[in-house]
């Protein structure tokens, strides 16, 4: 057990180690990174074993990695095009809409025209009687509930008794062609009784005569509160008396992912009675489970076939009702059924970022330490739960790093409203509140008279530490990210030093690299990811994996991991990741887990396969595998490379008695996290870190903001494929810029979504894109595959606050509403002019920077911390470190024993909720029905 990881201050240690093999979170010390689960295959690197040709003599800046001895110099760290790029570039990739089966029928979905209504009756007779119509289905054909999270299943294939938003599914038809299907759909008559609908999220907090869902004894009062969270950690008293404080009330609009490919699905029951569903899914396994539950058939009778995915970003990670509809219609009609969405339907199924109202308090003490972060987040979930249970946690718990904080006080609530459902979107739950935290830090730095860069650098959690709520931080490249963007952007010359309208700002981010306790996962029985390899007489290796390639490059990453260990060129690796029939279970492409978990599994499988081939080479060459080196399609004697055997020859020898070589590798996380309610939310085997600097031009007369340039540093642990990482960084910038400057789901005065199309849902065009300088920082994560961490979501977070802070630098206005559209900013500029007493916005004064004495102290502290972090990185100092050490706490004793003011609570007292300004806190005014007594 490494000393550096404390599950909880004063807890853990080898004496409590369990010997029965059970894994119990909260009781043991964190697992040593690199163990990667129950079979710790790797020994620490012996540099001797890395061939000199690939840099075996080089000392790694952050110490050795357990995978170093499996590096063959083949492909890891090299920019390679994605392995499926040519399929897409030549138009041969088959997306959802490209699947054509003989005899297919076209399905259409009848949707609700009302926000909220009871269905009194549905008459489908006319539709059924139409020529060319083969089957019609309504809610009666499918009464089983489903939902992406087992705890909040609240969806049906079609409405049961009521519709909950405009666009909610009511019935579906399938016919021989689309025109007939549309006619049939329009001929279904539905008798509705309209109910009063809820559109403002604050109304969702109130008791309602007709809550949008009924959760039985778990229902929270009679309200529309779907989930509420309360977390208090640390010394809240010093928070309330902190001398530097910034409190802001944020209004953040809802967002849609805006992926290119609309949803599409094909379902077919084959002659063996099995169901195959083709769908561009991020999470085929959850669809697999949901289909089984909804259709009442065992999972083994279903084959989920993931097609090429034309962009997901979280928007294709729920099991969807239209997928159920296709399967139901296919069962009824006995023929394949295809359903393609129009763009508008994509907005109705939504699952985008939650519209949110966030109260954010950032506090700092006289020593320039972050005394605490206080957050109250009310988020608008729309009509269904989707991922909302998790989102409600993420809005709070994901700002407990990268900074060491004195206290953390979070109230969060998610309510149902009669809107399309919100869900998971790139940067899930972390984006909005991260923006608020980083803008708060900028404001606090200004109050202190310190450079916001320095404030951040002097308050970072070190590597190999623990956050205030108990996340295990392994590697962190936060410091290097900040240093790089500071230098490359010319920060020191530009900050508070540019003319009116020109500004520069910094923002940081922190994101999970895989969910430590994923949704459908049995910690005792299933790994997170499994990879099977097969190598036949041709010498090529087929990789069977369930990881969903959604354009992020997961096929390429797993191919690279296998190719690296086996020292084979990428074209000898074949990926089979599409079908559940042939792929081992993978939990899907969400929470930035795939590269981290799947590549770890792939490395394990590849090592097993390699060992078989090495053993055969041993038999041929007579040298022990320890002194054999695997190079490009050849295995040779380390001390005389002329003595060797070809890959193919060794493979043939290994196959002599067993035929095709197969191997399997899996990955599961070490037991982690605290024991408090919600401790699992935000838990990850590693975290990514990023820091961006953005430079903006603000047109003070029109309110237009143009991002001129962005320097984007992201710590992805190790860039397995720098080309792909840079692509993710630039893409994240584009998406984040959309959220901060233009994208929003606009609801009209009657609650209608006004812009369900790509003309008025304003995704940034190439003209608005700044020059993005992607900067890769490699912190060499001890548990990541070859040191890698995620790069798909984290890079989105910092661009928002960087732009907001740059706007402040440019015109002196603190942003607290997103997106910062020109009309909104113009209004703020007008107000600001009035406040400053100027008529012409061109005469506005702009903020300037006078360093206070604290700046010097913080610079010194940042420097000392940099030295501390370096020692922790290279393992000369791995003493335990937990959040709180900066405030004088001893990491080896329980916090509560060291301070009377220390609190750790997840159930609020009346006093905690007294602040009338806090919206989400009001969710706690209701009593869950099961605790309401007999009444």
């Amino acid at each position, binding site marked *: 057990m490494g000393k550096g990881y404390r599950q909880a201050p004063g807890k853990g240690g080898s004496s409590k180690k369990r010997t029965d093999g059970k894994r119990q979170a909260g009781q043991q010390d964190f697992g040593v990174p690199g163990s990667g689960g129950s079979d710790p295959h790797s020994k620490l690197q012996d540099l001797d074993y890395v061939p000199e040709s690939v840099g075996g003599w080089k000392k790694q800046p952050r110490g050795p990695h357990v995978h170093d001895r499996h590096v063959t110099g083949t492909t890891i760290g090299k920019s390679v095009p994605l392995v499926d790029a040519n399929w897409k570039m030549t138009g041969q990739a088959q997306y959802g809409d490209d699947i054509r089966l003989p005899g297919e029928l076209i399905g259409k979905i009848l949707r609700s*025209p009302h926000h909220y209504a009871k269905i009194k009756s549905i008459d489908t007779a006319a539709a059924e009687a139409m020529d060319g119509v083969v089957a019609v289905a309504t809610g009666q054909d499918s009464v089983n509930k489903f939902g992406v999270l087992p705890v909040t299943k609240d969806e049906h294939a079609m409405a049961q008794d009521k519709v909950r938003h405009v*666009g909610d599914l009511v019935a579906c038809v399938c016919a021989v062609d689309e025109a007939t299907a*549309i006619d049939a759909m329009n001929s279904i008559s539905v008798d509705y009784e309209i109910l009063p609908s809820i559109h403002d999220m604050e109304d969702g907090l109130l008791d309602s005569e007709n809550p949008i869902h009924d959760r039985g004894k778990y229902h929270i009062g009679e309200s529309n509160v779907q989930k509420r969270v309360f977390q208090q950690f640390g010394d809240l008293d010093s928070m309330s008396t902190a001398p530097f404080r910034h409190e802001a009330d944020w209004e953040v609009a809802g967002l849609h992912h805006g992926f290119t490919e609309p949803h599409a699905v094909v379902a077919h029951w084959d002659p063996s009675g099995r169901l195959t569903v083709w769908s561009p899914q991020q999470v085929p396994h959850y669809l697999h489970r949901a289909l089984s539950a909804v259709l009442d058939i065992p999972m083994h009778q279903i084959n989920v076939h993931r097609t090429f995915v034309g962009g997901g970003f979280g928007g294709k990670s729920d099991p969807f009702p239209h997928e159920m509809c296709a399967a139901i219609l296919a069962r009824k009609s006995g023929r394949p059924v295809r359903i393609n969405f129009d763009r*508008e339907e994509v907005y109705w199924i939504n699952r985008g970022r939650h519209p949110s109202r966030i109260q954010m308090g950032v506090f700092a003490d006289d020593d320039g330490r972050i005394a605490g972060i206080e957050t109250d987040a009310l988020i608008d979930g729309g009509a269904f739960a989707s991922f909302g249970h998790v989102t409600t946690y993420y809005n709070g718990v994901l700002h407990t790093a990268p900074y060491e904080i004195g206290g953390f006080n979070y109230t969060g609530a998610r309510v149902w409203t009669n809107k399309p459902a919100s869900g998971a979107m790139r940067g899930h739950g972390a984006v909005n509140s991260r923006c608020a935290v980083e803008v708060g830090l900028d404001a606090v730095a200004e109050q202190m008279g310190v450079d916001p860069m320095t404030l951040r650098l002097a308050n970072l959690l070190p590597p190999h530490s623990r956050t205030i709520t108990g996340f295990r931080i392994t590697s962190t490249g936060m410091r290097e990210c900040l240093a790089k963007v500071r230098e490359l952007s010319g920060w020191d010359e530009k900050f508070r030093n540019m003319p009116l309208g020109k500004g520069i700002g910094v923002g940081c981010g922190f994101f999970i690299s895989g969910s430590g306790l994923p949704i459908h996962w049995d910690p005792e029985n299933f790994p997170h990811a499994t990879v099977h390899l097969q190598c036949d007489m041709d010498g090529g290796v087929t990789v069977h994996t369930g990881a969903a390639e959604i354009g992020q490059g997961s096929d390429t990453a797993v191919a690279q991991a296998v190719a690296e260990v086996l020292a084979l060129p990428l074209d000898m690796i074949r990926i089979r990741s599409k079908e559940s029939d042939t792929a081992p279970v993978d939990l899907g492409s969400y929470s930035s887990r795939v590269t981290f978990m799947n590549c770890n599994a792939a490395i394990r499988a590849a090592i097993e396969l390699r060992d078989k081939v090495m053993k055969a080479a041993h038999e041929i060459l007579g040298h022990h595998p320890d002194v054999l080196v695997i190079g490009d399609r050849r295995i040779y004697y380390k001390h005389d490379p002329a003595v060797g055997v070809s890959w193919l020859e060794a493979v043939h020898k290994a196959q002599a008695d067993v035929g095709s070589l197969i191997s399997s590798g899996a990955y599961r996380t070490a037991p982690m996290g605290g024991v408090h309610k919600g401790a699992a939310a935000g838990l990850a085997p590693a975290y990514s870190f990023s820091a961006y600097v953005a430079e903006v031009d603000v047109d003070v007369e029109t309110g237009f903001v143009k991002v001129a340039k962005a320097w984007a540093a992201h710590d992805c642990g190790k860039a397995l494929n720098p080309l792909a990482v840079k692509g993710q960084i630039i893409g994240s910038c584009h998406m984040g810029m959309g959220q901060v400057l*233009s994208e929003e789901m606009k609801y009209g005065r009657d609650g*209608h979504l006004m812009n369900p199309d790509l003309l008025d849902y304003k995704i940034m*065009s190439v003209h608005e894109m700044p020059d993005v300088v992607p900067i890769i920082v490699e912190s060499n994560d001890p548990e990541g595959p070859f040191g890698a961490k995620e790069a798909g979501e984290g890079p989105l977070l910092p661009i928002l606050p960087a732009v907001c802070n740059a706007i402040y630098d440019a015109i002196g206005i603190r942003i607290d509403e997103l997106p910062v559209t*020109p009309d909104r900013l113009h209004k703020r500029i007008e107000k600001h002019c009035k406040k400053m007493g100027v008529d012409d916005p061109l005469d506005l004064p702009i903020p300037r920077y006078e360093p206070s004495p604290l700046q010097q102290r913080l610079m010194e502290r940042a420097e000392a911390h940099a030295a501390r972090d370096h020692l922790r990185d290279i393992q000369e100092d791995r003493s335990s470190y937990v959040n709180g050490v900066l405030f004088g706490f001893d990491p080896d004793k329980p916090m509560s024993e060291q301070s009377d003011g220390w609190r750790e609570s997840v159930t609020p007292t009346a006093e905690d909720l007294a602040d009338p300004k806090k919206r989400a806190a009001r969710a706690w005014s209701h009593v869950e029905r099961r605790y309401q007594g007999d009444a």
Partner: protein
Amino acid sequence: MRMPPFTLHTPDNLAKAIALAAELDSFDWISGGTDLLPNYKWKLNPKPDVISLSKVQELTALSGTVIGAMVRIHDLVENESVHPLIRETAGTIASVMIRRSATVGGNICLDTRCYWFNQTEEWRRSIDWCHKCDCDTGADCRVIPNQNTLCVATYQADLAAAFIALDATIHLASASGARSMPFADFFELDGMTRNVLKTGELVTHVTLPDDAKNWQGAYQKLRLRETWDFPEAGVAAAWKIEGGKIAGLRLATTGCESIPGDHSELADGAIGEWAGKDSIRELAEGVRKAVKPVSNTYFPPAYRRKMLRVLTRRALSPLEHL
């Protein structure tokens, strides 16, 4: 998204097109199709017959003073003989891809747009339709309910402002003959009827005055993105300098009301006692007051009005020091 079925006619000269139009009960002209076809897919007043003008050669003339209705907007941008103000304005329309299909006539006759109208059929059903496309329900206006019979959908085409600023003349043709009129007179203050075109009539070309080349100009456009987006407000200005003095000044706006606005009288009145920046400021304020957008496009109307002031100032900025 399915195209409603229609019969496509492709006459190969103007006479045949006009004759065909006189025969059909209900039809639309189609030129580039970049406005009409998306509207058809959304079932916005589709017609059973569509007459394509793509083979009508008479409509493709292009010179310094004559611009045919079937000239592609991309060709306007690329052709050096076209007036610089027209080229500049055309270069801001939609995107290059769309400009390669879209035509001058199509842009002039662009259907008016509204948040409550430019939506799919299902969406409009959910608001019980609106009077611009009421599907025989007699629905009211959704922007300003209980008002009058006028439709307030917004005219969001760019070229009209430039044509008005350059004092262009528009030429129409129909079975009952050809007619011409000052460009601004082409429009009718109603988002439904939109312009003076009678059934069977079409725009053939636009002409600029012979001295147009002596006029300079500028076009300023408000839109969130520098591509695709329709103008949320647009200001075109044209002026003639003689002997270091302003000899003529014309101003036009678009993207704010159901028709483009001609503010040339206002502008002309200002040149007598021209005082540089101050005159510009006054004119800009005048334009703002003259135009009254409603809440039916992306930006709120109050903002669009205020921006008219800024756009006018910027369009006229070359005249600051005169």
